[in-house]
């Protein structure tokens, strides 16, 4: 990854590049053959297009006006006269707003709780501490074995959390993988720093809050975003635990309204004046946009975070 991080080349090097000599290309590498260059370019372009086209298609269709939609037969790749009609339609009924509220709530509350649990656990086990080792083993065991769907369901029912938003939050507030990433980051913080704070009389909570956490902003951001994405995307838990339509998160609404297309228009509380295609696409976009918004922040740090977790572990 190191090579991707070097951003700006000195001006001199750029000029040299213009003379078709690239300092990044080692002398011993052969000249690029036109054949391989073409193959590589094709691979990259096809892969990128296959990812970007559906997104563009969905966003464009949600913005297209009636006339163009009927002319194109349902889908447009570029809206000629963009209109927000589909969006005003879906926001007129209560369903989309409610489910957005549910998703936002479980994402925000869930992420904060998850960060608290993960940070405290990772910090406590990152120093040599009583019971540290068995606890780590108990956590890593969760990577190996899963308790299973039915027992988890029965547990949630036993806790009386069915049809409660906590059933979407609590099972997700600790992830072994995020724990490993966090802990390996904490262990790289010099022990002297912590010892000296301790000698100055700081308690462990103070050390965590005043010294360790400010030093770990990057990893906290990454892990927090991972949790947030997880909560925002949670679908299956909602399918299992939530029956009450007014407590559906956006993903479940998306499934019923778009994937199954099960005449949920009435459920959305809307009349079907604009074509359902663009309305459906508007729901897709509503579920998509928050991810697109946090993606740049995610991307800035995640490579490093993931690699510390996955390779060094």
């Amino acid at each position, binding site marked *: 990854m190191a090579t991707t991080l*070097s951003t700006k080349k000195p001006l001199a090097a750029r000029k040299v590049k213009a003379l078709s000599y690239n300092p990044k290309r080692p002398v011993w590498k052969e000249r690029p053959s036109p054949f391989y260059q073409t193959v590589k370019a094709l691979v990259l372009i096809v*892969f*990128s297009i296959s990812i970007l086209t559906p997104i563009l298609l*969905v966003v464009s269709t949600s913005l297209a006006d009636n006339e163009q939609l009927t002319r194109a037969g349902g889908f447009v790749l570029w809206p000629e006269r963009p209109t927000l009609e589909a969006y005003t339609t879906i926001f007129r009924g209560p369903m989309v707003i409610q489910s957005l509220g549910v998703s936002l709530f479980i994402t925000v509350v869930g992420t904060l709780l998850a960060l608290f*649990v993960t940070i405290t656990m990772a910090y406590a086990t990152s120093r040599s501490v009583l019971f540290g080792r068995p606890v780590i083993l108990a956590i890593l065991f969760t990577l190996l074995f899963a308790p299973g769907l039915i027992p988890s369901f029965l547990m949630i029912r036993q806790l009386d959390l069915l049809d409660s938003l906590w059933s979407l939050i609590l099972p997700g507030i600790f992830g072994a993988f995020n724990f490993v990433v966090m802990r390996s980051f904490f262990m790289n913080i010099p022990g002297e720093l912590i010892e000296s704070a301790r000698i100055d009389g700081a308690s462990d909570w103070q050390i965590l809050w005043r010294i360790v956490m400010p030093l770990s902003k990057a990893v906290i951001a990454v892990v927090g975003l991972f949790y947030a994405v997880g909560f925002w995307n949670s679908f299956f838990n909602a399918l299992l635990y939530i029956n009450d339509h007014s407590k559906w998160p956006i*993903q479940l609404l998306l499934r019923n309204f778009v994937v199954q297309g099960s005449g949920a228009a009435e459920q959305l509380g809307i009349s079907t004046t604009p074509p359902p295609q663009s309305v459906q696409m508007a729901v897709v976009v509503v579920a998509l946009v928050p991810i697109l918004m946090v993606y740049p922040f995610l991307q800035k740090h995640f490579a490093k975070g993931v690699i510390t977790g996955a390779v060094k572990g």
Partner: protein
Amino acid sequence: MKSTTEERPAPPVVRRPGGQAPEAGIRKVKPGKVPAQSFRSRLRRDKQMLLMMVPGAAFLLLFFYIPILGNVIAFQDYQPYMGIGDSLWVGWQNFVDLFGNPDFVHAFWNTLYLAAWQLVFLFPVPLVLALVVDSLVSTRVRRVFQSIAYLPHFLSWVLVIAFFQQMLGGAGFVNNTLRQLGMEAVPFMTNPETFPLLVVVQMIWKDAGWAMIIFLAAMASIDNSLYEAAAADGAGRWRRLWHITLPGLRPVIVLLLILRIGDILSVGFEQFILQRDAVGAGAAEVLDTFTYYTGVVGGGWSSGAAAGLAKGVVSALLIYAANKLAHRFGEDGIFAKKVG
């Protein structure tokens, strides 16, 4: 990781009133010996740290270890209104019934079949992508491509399926275009025969770019002088790929294969639940969906739990065996590294 077993310092020096020399307060310790601390004093010393473990431990107990114990209903004729305590014990009967149940056997073979597709067609793609990206000289192209390739990993399966439906579904973009051109529509999303292919394509779309990240990291850590030396000895690009890059990636490939093997019985839950209606249970029923439909939807709690438990145990054994195998081949596997 070994370096973290640092000892805590002796308790801070206590200055006695009366201006004694500070040395008087230091505990006398024989050189070369660490004073053994009693359990009680360690408990007192680590009080706050132990408190910090409480939320995580509570989570593990509530949502992992107690549910694991809940698997005992696989050996019962579990009745929800009677609870675990009063339900009748039936021993292995549920498992016997399960293996005699053609639906379960079908789901089992279907899972293995789909897993084989994934192993053959899904596994190499990120590696190939990583090789291509690693050979790029332009950082800008590299960065743009990586940004695009990682994105779908963060989208939910519901979104991914929605995208595929809009592109390839019966009323989707491609089929619309085909019809306008006067051609037959192709049932990409509803044909049980091509369903494995569809599943693999969806997985490649969603996660191949993301899976590439680990290979790229491993490639970046290969010593460049190896390439240089090989080139000086006259090795071409394919020779260098074969003799330097791939051996350098060996530990990572082995690690990922192990993880894959452990996951063989979980081919992708949400993906199948979401598409089961469209292609039918014949093609899309896997162990996980079987558990869901039998247990939660059908109310067969005990058979569902038995299916889930069988799957979990077999998966754990597979991972364990694969890891042993990796050790035999002289690789680290997962366990050797993970437990610091």
